[in-house]
């Protein structure tokens, strides 16, 4: 039986920033990663409960092949929220994420999102400095320093987005 309340969210970001790893950290899916490279999206789901409300989060993990490949905008349709993933050890992936934000909101309209600055465990190679973070703050963009490797803030990332999606629209 399908869950009665469901929300679709999308994971977007450059190639190899750790989108799939973040999802894998959060859920245990049944579809193999093979689908990801074949049709450009890997779909997982997980039941979540925030503020006493339960629903099933259907997570579309969108492929981030390289700078030239555009994400499939049809995969964005009907999303209730999205997560922009950037690799903290490669500063240009944040620029790409900012660019993606524009493309996604053009398609979906203004919907809740969170920026995940992933690979927070790689403190030695960390490239995203305070000015960049200040820029995010000044735009009013929520962000979290995450690590799919050690699990840092992964739950907070997905549940935080869930909470934003359930808030009544202003």
């Amino acid at each position, binding site marked *: 039986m399908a869950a009665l309340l469901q929300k*679709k969210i999308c994971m977007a970001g450059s190639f190899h920033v750790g989108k799939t790893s973040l999802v894998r950290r959060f859920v245990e899916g049944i579809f193999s990663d093979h689908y990801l490279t074949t049709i450009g999206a890997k779909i997982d789901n997980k039941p979540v409960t925030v503020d006493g409300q339960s629903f099933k989060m259907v997570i579309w993990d969108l492929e981030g092949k390289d700078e030239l490949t555009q994400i499939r905008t049809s995969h964005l349709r009907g999303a209730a929220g999205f997560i922009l993933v950037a690799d903290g050890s490669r500063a240009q992936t944040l620029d790409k994420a900012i660019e993606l934000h524009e493309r996604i909101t053009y398609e979906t309209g203004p919907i809740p999102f969170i920026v995940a600055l992933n690979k927070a465990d790689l403190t030695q190679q960390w490239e995203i400095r305070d000015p960049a973070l200040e820029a995010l703050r000044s735009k009013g963009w929520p962000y979290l320093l995450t690590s799919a490797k050690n699990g840092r803030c992964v739950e907070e990332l997905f549940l935080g987005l869930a909470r934003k999606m359930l808030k009544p629209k202003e």
Partner: protein
Amino acid sequence: MPEEHKGNGHGSANAFAELRSLLVGPEREELAAIRQRLDDPARVVKDLSRFLPEAIRLRRGDHKLRLALHPIVEQSIRLSVQRDPRMLTDALRPIILQAVSNAVSSALDGMLLSLNQMVEQSVSVRSIQWRLEARRTGKSFGEILLLRSLLYRVEQVFLIHRKTGLALLHREAPAVVAKDADLISGMLTAIQDFAYDSFGAGDSQWQTVQMSGFSLWIQHAPQALLAGVVRGAAPKELRSRLQETLERICRERAADLERFEGDATPFLACGPYLDACLLGQAPPVAPRRRVLVWLLAAVAILVVALGAGLFVSIRARQRWEDYVHKLSRQPGIVVTAVEKRGGEYRISGLRDPQETDSRKLLDASGIPASRVRFDWQPYLSLETKFAAGRELAATRAALEHQALYFATDLSRITPEQLNAIGNVAAEMRALFRQADAAGKRASIEILGHTDDSGTEQRNTRLGQERAQQVLNALAAAGVPSERLSARGVATSEPLRSGTSEPDRAVNRSVTFRITGLT
């Protein structure tokens, strides 16, 4: 003069130019016009375009032209596909559809033909029914065969929100194990998007997706999809059933579909519509197979039981034959008859009374002693073992019947007794020799008796002295003393129990007891 001359010179040049314009003026203008046309690319292209089609037409048989155009055409097509595949898809679709449908129908025809040929000769009750049906309906036998033998089943039905790809409702046939409907709906939508983006399938969308072992039948409406997981070959009518169901749901739930934001509760009411799409019938092979499985299991159990019984009986028989064979080779045993009555074995024959090994043989064979009855007649075996045994037994009996008598209260050996002691010593040496030959370590106890007169203390000492005296005499007569022992038994083991003088005389004696022969 020079002025004039000069004036004349100038005048002649002008005259020459005038003359030249008079002579070749029109040609020069023409030449200039031609040059202008050649220098103006737009004009050249315009001129060329007038001749190009004709020129190519003239050169169409020329191999060089084909070689020159080939890479250009190839690259142009590639570029066109890269820019927008839909254009080429649209252009090719009529041809491809025609080609595919031709190929499919010829393949189907071929299949029907070969099916016809294959089953033409085969006859069964069902095939006769089908033949009658074919004649009645005017269809070919193969077509009827396809219709009747290919069963199908709609195992699951999904109602999917088109925009989000979320599952609105999912129903499955009894005994179908369904995976997560939400994931399947999402994947299905993603695949549709992918197909749409990649191949530009247009509004027609994909209607059937063939997977290994089953197919997905998909119906489209602007707000929702209805997908059925079908196993087997379903009739075309299934598609219209799916389409009707989808249209009905879209009509009744138009508002809910429009404002759907993840809450599928309003669609629960559509459950019966989806249930009505779970059509078809499982092939009747399953129960027959179950019966077959039981039958096979029963046969297997029977075979195992028979095998076990056979094994036990063969083993019992083997044991019995082994035992009888060993028994008949046993010294001191002559088997004359072996028979089996009911569950009992009976062995008759002759047995030397000294024979004892046959009992051990039976214990070692594993045959229960209760199932064997022996009917032995005693006999004397002439085998060395038993002959020697008998000789030893005789010597022992003779020796144990010997007694040396003493006078009252005396323990000294008289000269008359020395003769008797010599005989006893000879018998003892013979006994030891015979016992050694039989592998037995015999020893002899010399018992000193007394009569019941006198004190017990005195009698005990007297008995011991008598036994010791005899031992010393026997040792002196050559009997190995380490195999002899002396013991005074006094009145505790009298040879006669009476108290008369003849009884007392008999009790004043020394006797011998042989040990170590058993």
